[in-house]
Structures are given as C-alpha cells and as structure tokens.
C-alpha cells in the first residue's frame, strides 16, 4: 500500500516511461496511456489484491485484470514493471523483434501478468465475465477487473456482454470505462455519440460509479474503493473514469492527435521537461 504522494511519484515516472518507450519504438499509443496512468498506478499498487512474485495464469486466490483496449500497452507494461512483474529494464525492448512486450498484449511470449491477448476491441468484457464465472464456480472470492476505451463501446460484443453480466448478476466484476471522449477519427461526439453512459449501464442492471477526474489520484482511489464496496451485491459494477487523453504533457492533452502517434526525438525532451525524472529513475 502506497501513500498518495508515492503513487503520484510513480505516475510521473510511468509517464516518462510511456513517452520514452513509444518514441524509442517509433510507434505505439501514448495518448490513452497518459490518460489512464493514475488508474493503472492505483490499481497495480493499492487496489488490486495480487502478487507479482506469484503470477499464475489461473489467477486463483488473486484479483485479475483484463485490459480490453490492448493498444495502451505503454501504460500497462510500465505499471506492471514498476510493480515488479518483470524487470524495468525490459521496457527498452517494447515493440522490438523478439520482445515479450508485444505491441498489443500477448500470452504467446510468456510475459508474467498477461492472461489473454487483447487489442481487437470489444472482447475483454466477455473474457472478464468468463473469469468471474470461473471464480464463482471455484469458490474464489476475489474480483475480476476489466478496462475499456470509451470508443470501444461502439463494438457490438460489448453490449452482448453488458446484457449478459447484468442479467446473470455477475457481481464479482468491475468494468472501468476510460471516458476521455476521444478516438482515432475524432471526438466520440463526432464519431459516435456515447449518450448517457450511466443510464445505459443502469438500464442493463449494472451499478455505476462516476469518477469526475480520473487524473486525480485520490479520486481514483476513492471511486474504485467505492466500486469494490458495491460488488458482491447481485450486480456488476461499471466505473466511468473521466480522463484527459494525453494528460501530463500540455501540448499532448485535449487532442486525439497522440492516440496512435508518438513524439519525435526532437519533441521528446520538451515533453519530458514537464515530467522530471523521479527517484525511481528512468529504465
């Protein structure tokens, strides 16, 4: 368990990792990664009951996390490494030939902490439901978490899964939506209006928690703690996590430009200057 200021320090270091990894790889998805850094940091270090030293594919006796929008591997891998799933130095191999840190999460390369390939959008909620049902069948009281992009909610399979989980009362499942209202071709308002997300989930018999500022560490912890407290009562829980894509670097924020575009070698120092290296040190 970390104090808030310790988590914030980790988040700053994670943001540096994200920028350095993607610029080095000349590819990747920094925007959504920067926006969800507080959430992943809080989940890895404080909220999830899991043990990086004893990772198992079955996740028995531990909480499980499935990140459905697998393109945000920079934040996934950085927070995993900083939490101790694998050496931080391995972040330098991101997207390189032969790496365990594939462009999108993969189980084929033996990276501890990854239980399912993801990135083909809309599938992680179904997988999470399956794992949650498996935990119920085996009497494991631990929770299953999923994470989704808001644009990803345009996939039809999401709503198959939302309908299923609500109807069957999969109450050991907490699904978080990264509500940054940006996607590749523009804002979600332009591409496909998400409408009233809370009302949509509630109509499918979910309970809903809204985190007004998902880039505020305390709000993330409070909101997710509330979601955990609401679990186990007959309904799945959705968390609408309001974030800013590209948060932490002023010229990367409030735009979808950096969804799948990386900083140039020239721009990288300008961004890193806004995120000074911490005592945790660069990889």
């Amino acid at each position, binding site marked *: 368990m970390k104090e808030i200021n310790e988590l914030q320090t980790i988040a700053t270091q994670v943001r540096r990792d994200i920028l350095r990894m993607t610029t080095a790889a000349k590819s990747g998805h920094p925007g959504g990664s920067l926006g969800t850094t507080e959430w992943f940091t809080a989940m890895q270090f404080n909220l999830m009951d899991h043990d990086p030293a004893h990772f198992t*594919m*079955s*996740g*028995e006796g531990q909480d*499980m996390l*499935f990140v459905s929008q697998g393109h945000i591997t920079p934040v996934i891998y950085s927070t995993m490494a900083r939490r101790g799933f694998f050496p931080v130095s391995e972040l330098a191999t991101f997207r390189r030939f032969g790496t365990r840190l594939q462009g999108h999460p*993969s*189980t*084929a390369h033996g990276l501890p902490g990854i*239980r*399912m*390939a*993801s*990135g*083909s959008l*809309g*599938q*992680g*909620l*179904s*997988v*999470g*439901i*399956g*794992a*949650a*049902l*498996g*935990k119920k*069948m*085996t009497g*494991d009281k631990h929770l299953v978490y999923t994470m989704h992009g808001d644009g990803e909610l345009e996939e*039809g*399979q999401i709503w*198959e*899964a939302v*309908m*299923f989980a609500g*109807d069957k009362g999969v109450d050991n499942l907490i699904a978080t939506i990264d509500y940054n209202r940006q996607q590749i071709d523009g804002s979600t308002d332009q591409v496909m209006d998400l409408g009233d997300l809370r009302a949509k989930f509630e109509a499918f018999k979910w309970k809903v928690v809204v985190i007004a500022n998902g880039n505020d560490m305390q709000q993330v912890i409070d909101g997710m703690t509330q979601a955990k407290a609401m679990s186990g009562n007959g309904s799945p829980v959705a968390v609408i996590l309001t974030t800013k894509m590209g948060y932490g670097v002023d010229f990367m924020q409030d735009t979808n430009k950096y969804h799948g575009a990386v900083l140039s070698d020239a721009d990288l120092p300008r961004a890193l200057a806004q995120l000074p290296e911490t005592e945790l040190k660069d990889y």
Partner: protein
Amino acid sequence: MKHYENKQSKELRSGFGAGLVEAGRNDSNVVALTADVCGSVKIDAFAKEFPDRFVQCGIAEANMIGIAAGLSLCGKIPFLGGFAEFVTGRVYDQIRQVVAYSNKNVKICGSHAGISLGEDGATHQTMEDIALMKALPNMTVLVPCDYNQARLATLAAARLNGPVYLRLGRSKMPNFTDDNDTFVIGKAQLLNEGTDVSIIACGHLVWEAIEAARALEAEGISAEVINMHTIKPLDTDAILATARKTRAIVTCEEHLFNGGLGDSVAQTLALHCPTPMEYVAVNDRFGESGTPDEMLTNYGLRATNIIDKVHAVLKRK
C-alpha cells in the same frame, strides 16, 4: 472388402451430446455453453445433469467465445455449442484472438455443419468452416464420421489441453463404427485395405466412401478407405503411406474445395509425394434449400460421384 453395417442412422450432434455428458461425469471441470440452441446442439442432457456447470449465453456467440476463454483460465474445460456457421465464421476474430492465439483450452462444437443441413438453406450451411479453423495456429480440427465417433471425439477433445474445433452434422446418418473404437486425435483410421486407389474421406462422406469401395470391388478395383477424422494435425504419415502404395488418391468431404481436407492432402502430396488426385467436394458455390438427401445428391457428394472420381484418377496413374 471389410464389412461395415449401418446399425441405425443417428445424428452426429447426438453423439456429441452423449459424449459431453460422459466427459462431464469424468471431469468436474467440464462446463458447457450455448447461444440459445441448447436442444438443437444436444447440450440439454448436460445442462439438466450439471445445471451449475452450464452457461446460457443467449443469442450472442461473440460474447460466448470470450466467456469460454475466461472460464478456461480458471481451469475449466469449456465446450461451447452452436450452429457451425455461427460459432466459426460469425466469430472468427474472437476465436483467433482469445482462443487460438491465446491458446486456451476451449472446445468449439459446431453442429448443423455442411450441406446436409438441408432445408434451412445456404445462410446456415457452412462449407467453409474447416478452412477457417484449420488456418488458425494452435487449433485442432476434428470431423468425426458418425454418431459413435462423434461421441469418442468429444471425449478425446476433453482430454486434450488446447483449442479444438469439433464439426458435427444435424441429420441422421449411418452409424457404422464401433462404440468402443479407440479414437486418437491425429491418427487416421484405416477402414479398408486396398491396392489400386486410396479414398480419403471425412465426416458424412466416409460412409459414402465405404459404399463406393464396395461397388468398386465388384468392378475389380481394390480401394483403400481411410477415415481422416482429424484434419489438423494431419496424419501425413498415413497419407504418404497410402499414396506410395496405390499411387492414386480421391478425397471426399462435405466442404468447399478451398481449404478443406482435400487441400490438406494435396499440400502433403505436393511437398512429399506428387500423386494423381481428385476431389469430391463442392466447388466454390453456396448451397440452397432441399432435403439432406437431395443436397448430397445434387451437389455431387454421393458414392456414385466418388466412383466417377476414382475412374478419373485411375486414368491419370
């Protein structure tokens, strides 16, 4: 010619249903899922006996694939059943990502496969499913030939740790194999030894191949009959052994030319033992409505069609 008798025509999907109940009794980790076709794909007996191990997903096959993959993480052995078209073609990417690429212990059981589905028409008659499933790394593809073998294939699939596609038909078909046969995944079944030509068949066409071999015997042609119930991993040793022996091959399947058993056999022969070969399959077209018998006859999937292809290939020897 070895004697084979149709003991009583039965549906392969029912053999799957019987095998699934047995698998469930053998291993408490076996679970079953369906998408609103519990009775049609014969999962109902399992659901009745093991209600806590049955998941009704509603009409949502994509979600069902993901749920099955998630269940497999927790040590469960999920068998998901649906119409073959809708648990393969409709959800190809889901299978690719969370079953095949993620290498999960999920069994995809597709009933109503092939043109013998009959009256429902081409929307439901998949003849591409073998091609789709065999293209996926990590995937095992099983096409049993009758009720008894469908039951044994189901039990074998439960014992194998990895993704499996099990192809099943809807209609009653001759049941002629022994119910206590040994079923080994990846090991072809030699049904009749012959010297002039080899007929390699799978699924419903195996019985037609036996009938063809009988008729050919009367003509003085000695046909070897091989039941290639596993399309992947393919028993290439069996193919090469029979090719070297008879120097003429006919493949038979209720599937398109493209991507089916014939293609797998042809690939093996081209690489290791070029041999004259003919296909009995459907060539690049969709099906239509009709009775199962009408469909098999009008689409050229009968013993008589096999005999014609045998004559053709023998001229090329």
